[in-house]
Structures are given as C-alpha cells and as structure tokens.
C-alpha cells in the first residue's frame, strides 16, 4: 500500500519538477515577484514618507503676531506664502493644494495675550485639507509650533510653567529576557498571514491541475484500472501536493526575506528589521513547524476534496476561490485581532495555527496550545482524507463522463 502511494507521489512530483513552466510559475516567479513587489512597495512608501517629512509647508497667515512669525521663520520646513488673506481665499487655495495650512489670529491677538484678562481668550483659527498629505503634515507642524508658543506664554504669564503642571510622567520599558523577547511585533503578526497564504496559493494551482486536471484530461482514469487501491491514488497526490505546498511556501518566503532591506518599513512596527531577529529557539522552531504542517495538511486535503468534486479545472477554481478567501480572512483576523479571554480561538482549526505562530514569534509560544492546534489540524485533515477516500469510490466523482 505504502509502495503504491509513494509511487503515485513520486510521479506527481516528477510531473511538477520536470516541467520548467510549472517550476517557474509555482516556485521561481512567486519568489521573484514577491521580492520585487515588496521591495518596490517599501521603497515607494519610504520615499513618500521622506518626501512628506522634508517638504516645505506653504502656510497662509492672517494677523500674524510677530513672535509667532519669528518662530515660523526659524522652522526651515515652513514657508509663509500668503499674508493677510481671508478665510474664503484660504479655503480655495487649500482645496487646490496651493496652500497647505492657513492660520488666522484674532485682531489684537498679541495685546490680549500680553494684557490677559480672565475669560478673554483670543481666538486662533487653523485650517488644513485632509485630502492632501502635505497639508496633513503641515497641520501637525503648526499644532506643535502653537503648543510651543502656548508653553512660552504660560511660562512668562505665571513666572514658572510648573504651576500648571500637575505631575511629571515617566514611562519606561521593562527588561524582557532575551529568550522571551520574540521578534518585531509587526513581523510576528504579518508572518502567519504570509505563511498561510503562501501555503494555500502554492497548493492551489498544482492541486487543481493534478486532480481536476487529470480527471478532465482522462489521465486519472488510466490509473483507476490498475490494481492499486483508489485511496492510494488520491493519497499519493495529497502527499506530493504537501511537498509542493511547503516548497512553494519556502520559496515565497525567501522572496519576502530578499525584500526585507527595502520592505522592513512595511512589515516592522519599528520600521527597521534585521534577519537575526528571526532567530528562534529549538522549541519555538518545532512548535512553529507543527503549526505550519497543520496548515499544510488541512489546506492540501481541502483543495484535494474540492478538486475531486469538480469536473474540470475551471470548476475546481470556482470551488476553491471561496476557501482561499476564508484563508485570507482568517489571516487578517489574526493580524488585527485582539485577545481571546475564553480561549475559544485555540480550538478553531486554521485560526488556532495562526494564533500559535503569532504567539511563538512574539516569544509567548505554548507547547500545550501548539499540541491543541495540532490535534484539531489532524482531526480536520483526517476528516478530509476520509472524505477524499469516499469520493474516490464514487463513480460520478472519479469517472463523471
């Protein structure tokens, strides 16, 4: 039984690895395209951020007090381009992007500040366009500048600014032991999503061709008249598909690693990342592998079952697409999801594997939870294998014509 299963698996792997087109489209192209796409994204995002930061904000003013004018002039990233314009003019300029911020001070603003009377607070109107990134950045700059001005005024008015200071706040980070530090938080939440999608995508293309494609072309029927158990035919295909999915996932992941020098700002919460941060202990690595293998088993068997039900490659694609969407949704839910006090998520197949990967990468991996997820993965995989075996016995499924 094992011999024929391995024979089928070897034939399937030979089919994939001796087909240059399949090798390029399934392993090399995803790696290269992922490396290029993420690198370009990282470079573009970085450039956009730099551009916004270094951009000289064009500010329009009305009744600008001398002191604030001085402060504005000392900031090299701000330029006053419009003086004494009214609010209507400013709105038009902001809308067109010809102005990035407009600030208008009440008539006699400086006098009111200097001769402060209780309850007589002068009005300052600021305006920006949320539609333009430069304008949003200018809003931050001007708010910070006005906050600085406020502190100066209060300090001179009260003699000591600490009169209005209720407390001093000092926040610090606790020292985390090296072994439980985990990797960057951004990466820890992103990697499970990528791993999950890469495994499914890798198995999908080849799985559809190997099962629905063989049915459609009539090459599977040729094997059905040989003296091997039909369960071994699908078993061999599933085995080879698992290997393909793993290799495809690894190649795609290499693409991500290649892009890291440029794409770290996309993945990393701090904006920087070094490969050494991915280093994991032996136990963490084992738990991560268990979670990954669990996903491979479930995805490959689900793809196999859906491909078997389909009578053509086209039909299989239509059946598998919703499953792919669910895989992506579970990945994003894990990436942005919050806590699970009741621990119910630990028993939901697929999702629990993703949570565990996230935990392991964050330095909070638990062997018990990894085993629970392995248990649910095995249960789903076995159920799918049994279903696949049953389907192989159905005439309408294996030989629909």
């Amino acid at each position, binding site marked *: 039984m094992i011999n024929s299963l391995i024979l089928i698996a070897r034939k399937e792997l030979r089919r994939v690895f001796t087909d240059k087109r399949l090798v390029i489209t399934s392993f090399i192209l995803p790696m290269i395209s992922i490396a290029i796409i993420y690198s370009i994204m990282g470079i573009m995002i970085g450039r956009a951020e730099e551009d916004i930061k270094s951009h000289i904000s064009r500010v329009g003013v009305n009744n600008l007090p001398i002191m604030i004018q001085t402060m504005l002039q000392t900031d090299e990233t701000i330029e006053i381009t419009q003086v004494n314009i009214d609010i209507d003019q400013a709105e038009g300029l902001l809308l067109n992007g010809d102005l990035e911020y407009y600030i208008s001070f009440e008539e006699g603003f400086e006098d009111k500040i200097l001769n402060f009377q209780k309850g007589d607070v002068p009005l300052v109107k600021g305006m920006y366009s949320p539609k333009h990134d430069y304008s949003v950045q200018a809003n931050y700059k001007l708010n910070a500048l006005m906050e600085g001005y406020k502190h100066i005024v209060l300090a001179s008015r009260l003699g000591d600014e600490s009169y209005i200071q209720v407390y001093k706040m000092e926040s610090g980070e606790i020292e985390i032991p090296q072994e439980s530090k985990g990797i960057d938080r951004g990466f820890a939440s992103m990697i499970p999503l990528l791993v999950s999608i890469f495994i499914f995508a890798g198995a999908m293309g080849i799985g559809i061709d190997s099962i629905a494609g063989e049915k459609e072309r009539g090459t599977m029927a040729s094997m059905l008249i040989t*003296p091997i158990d039909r369960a071994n035919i699908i078993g061999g295909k599933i085995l080879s598909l698992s290997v393909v999915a793993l290799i495809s996932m690894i190649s795609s992941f290499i693409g991500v690693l290649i892009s890291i020098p440029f794409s770290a700002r996309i993945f990393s919460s701090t904006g920087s990342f070094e490969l050494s941060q991915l280093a994991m202990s032996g136990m963490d690595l084992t738990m991560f592998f268990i979670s990954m293998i669990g996903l491979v088993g479930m995805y490959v068997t689900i793809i196999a079952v859906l491909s078997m039900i389909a009578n053509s490659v086209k039909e299989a694609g239509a059946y598998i697409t919703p499953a792919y969407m669910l895989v992506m949704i579970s990945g994003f839910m894990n990436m942005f999801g919050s806590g699970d006090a009741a621990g119910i998520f630990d028993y939901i197949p697929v999702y629990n594997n993703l949570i565990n990967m996230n935990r392991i990468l964050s330095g909070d991996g638990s062997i018990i939870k990894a085993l629970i997820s392995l248990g649910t993965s095995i249960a789903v995989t076995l159920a799918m294998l049994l279903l696949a075996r049953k389907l192989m016995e159905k005439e309408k499924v294996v030989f629909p014509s």
Partner: protein
Amino acid sequence: MIKVHGLKKTFELSKKQMKANNTDQKYKVAVNGIDFIVYDNEIFGLLGPNGAGKTTTLRCLSTLISPTEGTINVNGYDSVKDPLAVRSQLAFLTSELKLDSHFTPDYTTRFFGRLHNMNDELIEKRMNHLFDYFGVTPFRYTKISDLSTGMKQKLSIAVSLIHDPSLIIFDEPTNGLDIITARAVTDYLKELKAQGKTIIISTHMMHVAEKLCDRIGIIMDGNIKTMGTLEEILQTTGKDNLEDAFFKLYFENEVK
C-alpha cells in the same frame, strides 16, 4: 474466461442531462441485464450503434464502474468483491483513458508496470518487446505530446499490455489509425489470442469484426439482440454479410 450474468447498469440523470435527452425519466438504463461468456483463446466482438450500451458494458467489465445488478466473473474473481484481483488480470483500452503527455513512453510504461507490481527487469523485457512490435522504440524518450496520433494509440496499447494480462478489453482499438497501424493492432490481437488470452473488442467497423472475431454479440438499447459466430448470425438473420445482418437487426429494433 469472463462470465457476465444479468449485467444491468442504470445511471441517474442530472436535470441538465434530462433536458439534453428530452426525457422526464430520472434514470437511464444503459445496459439491461445481459448475459455472455467469453472463453480463453477467443476474440469476442461487441457491436452496436452509438448509445447501445457497448462502452458501459466494457467499463463495467474493466471495473471502472460497478454494475447496478448482475455479476461479472473474471477467471474466478468477482469484479465487485475483488476488483483489484480483476484489474491485475485485465487490460482496458478506450479513447477516454489518456496518458500524461508530459512524460516519455519509457517513463509512462515503467510507471504503469510498477503500478502492476512488476519488477524492473520484467518491465524492461516486456517494454522492449511491446515497443519493438508497435514501433515505439525510436520514440522511447520523446515526450508523448510530441508523438503522432497513431504513435500515441500504439503506445496506449503497449502500456495497457505491459503486465501481460489474460483478459484484454479494447474499445474501438483501430479508431483513428491508418491502415498499416490498424493491421499491426489486429495482428497483435490475433497473436494474443494464440497465446490463450481472452479478448473482447467493440467496434463500428464490420470488416474488422468479420475478420477478427470468433464470436460476435450485437447490442441495441442495452440488450443483446443476437450472439454467435459470424456464420450463425448470418444464418439467423438470413443475410450474407455482417453489415446487412446488423442493419436488419437495427431496423427491427427501431420498429419495436
């Protein structure tokens, strides 16, 4: 030897199929309780118009599909209870079974030999013999996708026979072949018969059946209308050639 007793095969039609067949019947009886025996050292021909039940019968014999009723016994093995034993003894060739065009004849034949639990030495021996006979040897390492239609058909025959089966079921074996290749195939079937094999073929070509078959069964609407040697059929129908005999039975069936 193969014994077929009360073979019946019914298909459940989908709504789409019911519409296409212009029927409100949910089930279609493709083969309606047929009986026949094919002996060793014999070529049995199954003749019939399209949709008569020939292919369904052959699919049941090859264990590709199961009978709804009745039994098929191949050399003492029941096709439903012991399908693996039956499959190990038969070769089935039909246009619906294809070989993966990505591989070479050499790899494909070895692969199927191994599926039949043959050792490499035996596979090599059988493969050399079959490839030489059917002229596949020069194309042994050529991708199947690059072979001509005739060469693909000859390769399919070689692959189906790699395990030296005792029962050979060929559905339209000479379909699409040129006259030379067709002759090579029919000659080989005669050689297999001489070796004591049990051979069943289905064909539309009356002259092939006349020349090749020891006995012929004519099937229409899932029932065997007549069965016997060529002489017996001609005598029963009062005709002097198989084609006329076939048409006589066909029109009689249409009238009914």
